[in-house]
C-alpha cells in the first residue's frame, strides 16, 4: 500500500497501482487512469461498463467478473475486449478504481 498523486489528487493504491479506497475515485481520476493504460478517450460505452462496475461493487463489495458484466451488466464480452483490449477484467477494475478481480480459486 502507498499513496500516489493522480490528476492532482492524492490517492491510496496497492503495489500494482489499483486504487484501494472506493470513495477516493472520481470521473477525472477515471480518465487519468485510463490514459495511463493506453485508453486515451473514454466513450459512452466505456462509461457504461465503468458505472456498472462501480454500482455492482457498491452492492456486493466485490469486483464483478467479466461474465457478470456481460450477463448482469448486459455488455457482450467481445465488446469488453474491444473497449479494454487484452485484459478487460483487470483494466476495467483499474479505471473504475476498484480492486483487481480476484484470481478465482
Amino acid at each position, binding site marked *: 500500500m502507498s499513496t500516489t498523486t493522480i490528476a492532482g489528487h492524492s490517492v491510496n493504491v496497492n503495489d500494482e497501482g489499483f486504487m484501494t479506497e472506493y470513495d477516493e475515485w472520481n470521473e477525472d481520476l477515471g480518465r487519468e487512469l485510463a490514459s495511463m493504460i493506453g485508453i486515451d478517450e473514454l466513450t459512452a460505452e466505456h462509461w457504461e461498463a465503468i458505472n456498472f462496475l462501480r454500482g455492482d461493487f457498491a452492492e456486493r463489495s466485490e469486483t464483478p467478473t467479466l461474465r*457478470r458484466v456481460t*450477463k*448482469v451488466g448486459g455488455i457482450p464480452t467481445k465488446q469488453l475486449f474491444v473497449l479494454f483490449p487484452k485484459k478487460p477484467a483487470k483494466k476495467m477494475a483499474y479505471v473504475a478504481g476498484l480492486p483487481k478481480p480476484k*484470481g478465482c*480459486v
Partner: protein
Amino acid sequence: MRQLLVLGAGTAGTIAVNKLRRRLPDDEWTITVVDSKPEHHYQPGYLFIPFGTYQPDEVIKPKAQLITNGVDLIIGEVDVVKPDESIVVLVDGAELSYDQLIIATGTHPRLDQTEGLDSRHYGETIHDFYTLDGATRLAEVLDGWKGGRLVVNIVEMPIKCPVAALEFMFLADAFFKERGIRDKVELTYVTPLDGAFTKPLAAGYLGDMLDRRQIALETDFMTMEADGDRKMLVSYDEREIPYDLLVTVPVNMGADFVDRSGLGDELNHVEVDRHTFLSDGHDNIFALGDAANLPTSKAGSVAHFAVDVFVDNFVQHIKGLPMTGSFDGHANCFIETGNGKGMLIDFNYDVEPLPGKYPLPGIGPFSLLKETPANHWGKRGFKWTYWNVLLPGRHLPFGPDMSTKGKRMQEMASS
C-alpha cells in the same frame, strides 16, 4: 413433524444427510433427499479413466446404498424452489414442502456455453474428462492416438477440482513417455489465469513442473470459441492455438433451477454466507458443496470440511440459536503428478498452499507442495476412504479447520 429437504445426493448432500440423520431425532424430523440420477460417481476417479488406470465401473455405486436408513431418496428433477412458500416443485409436478432446505446440486461442465464445443466435433477432436461419458470416450481415443498437438484449455474459472486439469497434463506426459511417443506429442496447457494455478506460491511450483516436462503454458487466454473445422482454439483477443486433440474444461455452472428460483449468481451458484452457508435473504435455505458461491475451491474435500462445520451450526439454527461455527474455506487436494508420485496442497480463504508436512506437523506422512510416492498412494487410497469413511459421515483423524502447524509460513508469497 418438521421436514428437512435436501436437493442433490452428491458428495455434500450425502455426507450431510448421513450426519444429520444421527443428529435429528426421528420423531421430530423427516429427511428427504432428491436427486435426478440413481448413481453416485466418485468424481476424482474421472481423471484416471482416459489413461486406462480406472475402468468406468470402478467409480459408480447406487445412491440408495450410500444413504443411511431413515432418509428418503426421491429420484426426480427439480423444476423450481419457491422460497416464499417453502415448496420445491419437481419437473413431474410433485410438490415437496420443507421447513429447512439444503441445496447441494453441485456445479457442472457446460459445453453449450462456448461456441464450437458442443458441435459435431465433440467426441472426435474435442473431448472433456469431467464427465464419465467424456472420460470414457477420451480413453478410447488416447489408446489409439499416434501423436500430435494435444491442447487442454480451461474456459473460465471457477471450475470444480481446479487442480485436475494440471494433473491431466502430468499424467498425459507420463502416459505418452510410457508408450514411447512423447517426442511425437506437443502438450499445451491453456488457462484464463495469469499463471499455472490460482494461488501464487503453488502457481510457481506447478509452473516449474510444467516446464520440466516440456509442457507449454499459455496464460491469460479467454477462450471465445473452438473452431472445429480449422482445429483452432480462438481467444477474445484473437490469439489462436492449433490442436489435433482438444481436451476442454468447459464453463462450470450450478443447476438451472437455482437461476429459475432467483437464488443464484451469474453462474447459478447459490449466494450464501461464506462461513455458515445460509442463503442470502432466506433463513431456512442453505447451500453446501460446489452449489454454493464460496470463494474457495469447488472440491469434495471442501464439501467434507464444510459439512463438518455446518452440521453443528444447523442443530443450533433449528433451535433458534445463533450459529457459532465458522467455516474457514479449508481445502486440500492431492495432485497426481505421474510416475507413481503425487503432491498435496492444503489451504483456506486466507492462507495459500505452503510447503510442510500433513496432517501431523513435521511427520506427515504426506508432504505439502512436494512430489512424493506417499502422496500418490494417499490419492489412490482416497477412493476407499471416500466410499467407506467420507460419505457415511464417519470421523476422519483431522478436523475441519486448517492448521498452519508444520508449514513453512515464511514462504508465503507477498501478493
